[in-house]
């Protein structure tokens, strides 16, 4: 079953002198439970594509349907709500809320969703334990290493029980050990809980782990390989 259906997607940036086609007629389906890496050189359109899939940016033409919802039919307020309930985000720079503890960062998403208090506490603990941070729940981001912060970011993305998680260069700021550790956790979550992950990455370690690799060049898919 397709979680994401992209048809004839285009994104054109109008510069002062020239037009840049960041995404040029992309057709793509992502199925539930996929562990997909989107790779390509800088400027190939990886982040632009993920931003549009995540509802953060709008296409110039074409359509993106996420779990039977055409994103182009949603206004800004509905998009925020849609993201909250359907999409998890993991950013390159972790981007945790610095004044909240690991536990609070994770539970905050569920509070925004309006989940019951007892469920929030239970699920927060479970998720943080699943990413190996059961003993650092009360630490603030500045008390955690980069790898630990990124694991909290993954936990936060999982908290809302999303349809899929978008991870934009999640390992770019991590050392080898932390990268391995993070990838193992994400792979395990994917296998055990059937969570769909879509990465944009340059990192070959991520590419090796991915079960589907999509190569973008100049805004076009030049290779789509399933392992």
């Amino acid at each position, binding site marked *: 079953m397709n979680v994401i259906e992209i048809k004839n997607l285009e994104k054109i940036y109008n510069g002062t002198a020239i037009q840049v086609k960041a995404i040029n007629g992309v057709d793509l389906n992502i199925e539930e439970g996929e562990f997909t890496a989107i790779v390509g050189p800088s400027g190939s359109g990886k982040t632009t594509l993920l*931003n549009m899939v*995540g509802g*953060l*940016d709008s296409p110039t033409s074409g359509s993106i349907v996420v779990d039977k919802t055409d994103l182009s039919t949603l206004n800004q*307020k509905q998009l*925020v*709500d849609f*993201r*909250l*309930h359907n999409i998890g*985000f993991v*950013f390159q720079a972790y*981007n945790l*809320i*610095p*004044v*909240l503890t690991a536990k*609070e960062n994770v539970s*905050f*998403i569920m*509070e*925004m*969703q309006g989940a019951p208090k007892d469920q929030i506490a239970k699920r927060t603990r479970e998720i943080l334990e699943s990413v190996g941070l059961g003993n650092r729940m009360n630490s603030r981001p500045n008390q955690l290493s980069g790898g630990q912060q990124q694991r909290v970011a993954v936990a*936060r993305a999982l908290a*809302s029980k999303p349809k899929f998680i978008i991870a934009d260069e999640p390992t770019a700021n991590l050392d080898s050990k932390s990268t391995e550790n993070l990838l193992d956790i994400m792979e395990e979550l994917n296998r055990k809980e059937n969570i769909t992950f879509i990465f944009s990455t340059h990192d070959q370690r991520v590419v090796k782990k991915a079960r589907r690799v999509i190569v973008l060049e100049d805004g076009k898919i030049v290779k789509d390989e399933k392992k």
Partner: protein
Amino acid sequence: MKKIIILAWRNLWRNKRRTLITAASIFFAIFFAILMRSFQLGTYGYMIEQSIESYTGYLQLQNPDYYDDPSIDNSFGYNQQLIEKIRSHQNVKSIAPRIESFALASNGIQSKGVLVSGIDPDAEKEISNPIHRLIRYQFTEAAIDKMKQNGNLPPDLMAKIESCKNNTYSSEAKIELELELDDESTNKYLPIITHYSHFNSQYLTSSDNGVLVSDRLSRYLKVTIGDTIVLMSQGYHGLSAAGIYPVRGIIKMASPDLDNKLIYMSLPEISEFLGLDQQVTSMVINLNNNDEMMQTQTELQTLISNDHQYAVKNWEELIPTLKQQIEGDSIGGQLFIFILYVIVFFGIFGTVLMMIAERKREFGVMIAIGMKRKKLSQIVSLELIFMGILGIISGMIAIAPILLFGHYYPIRLTGEVAKMYEDMGFDALMPMALFDSYFFSQGVIILIMILIVCIVPLRSIKRLKVIDALHG
């Protein structure tokens, strides 16, 4: 909501130094605005107390011609029925009839133009309460010598008493305050001091033929209790008025202007002196609620206009110079406070601009992960409100004891400034006003300023492009 409050409070302390600097600017704005306004309003209140509550009254009933030509020829007849009618108004606290005229007072070779005020001694207790102002104690040279001979007063207290030579006091409490006596010293030494400094002022009876003389006037005329003064004036319709009157007591008026020229007589005695028959120049009215003065004035005017031709005047009409003086000074003070607030406003504004620039990416992330812009706006607004409240409350707490002290122990001005005050007819005291609407309104002004500043981040969050923000 709880998490939003927690987030806002914690965000406030992410950049402690900036928060403290901004809160400090609000603290000082509140502190100085209240300090200045308190001095202003306290001084105005004291001026009003000296001039209005202690003599003029908030309202006066007069012959309509008396306002332009304040002569006893423009007096009016009165009776108990009229008094009762006025008293029936719910905001009228007290009413007293008065006859006022100018006369030449003399004792030996000393003479001076004075204001002779004929009063109903009983009714006047509820207006200017002259009994309260009678001098009961005086540190004359003879009294100080006797205290020295007594030998029971410590040298430092004697030195203080000597520095207050010729000062007069209307109560033991005022001596305590002047000599800064503690409880023990009060119990031990005050009976000795009052014993030797006792001054036997008497109040007037309803048909007394004596007079009360104001303190400074008595010094000028060199009269004391038991002496007599001669008064000469022009009576009703040009009658020649003259009389000799024993001094029953010396009275200390708060207003130096009045203290230099006032003589109280009983109504029957002044009527005889000026040739009046059941006539007065004014009815002085004090109110229960002074804020309703204008409304009461109109209502009283309506109440009495059916039967008689009277004019009801308020103190602002009776002493326009005082009103203008207060208004002029008040505007100057408010202008200063306005400038202070403008400076603080731009301080807060700068902080907000820095905060937005610093946290643009964070705002983008929060919206990206599903936080509604409205909630984000609430967090940022709450941060600013918390910062404002922090400055406001700390400023109010810091100023409160100073304000209390300044109210109960007012600053006595000295030198040229004091002379200027006295020339204007006021005692050179600067009391601070107690907690009133002005105190809290300073906090409200700051909060309004913060709410205005909040527009900037709210607008910024509303217009934030998530993609741009995420890319920093």
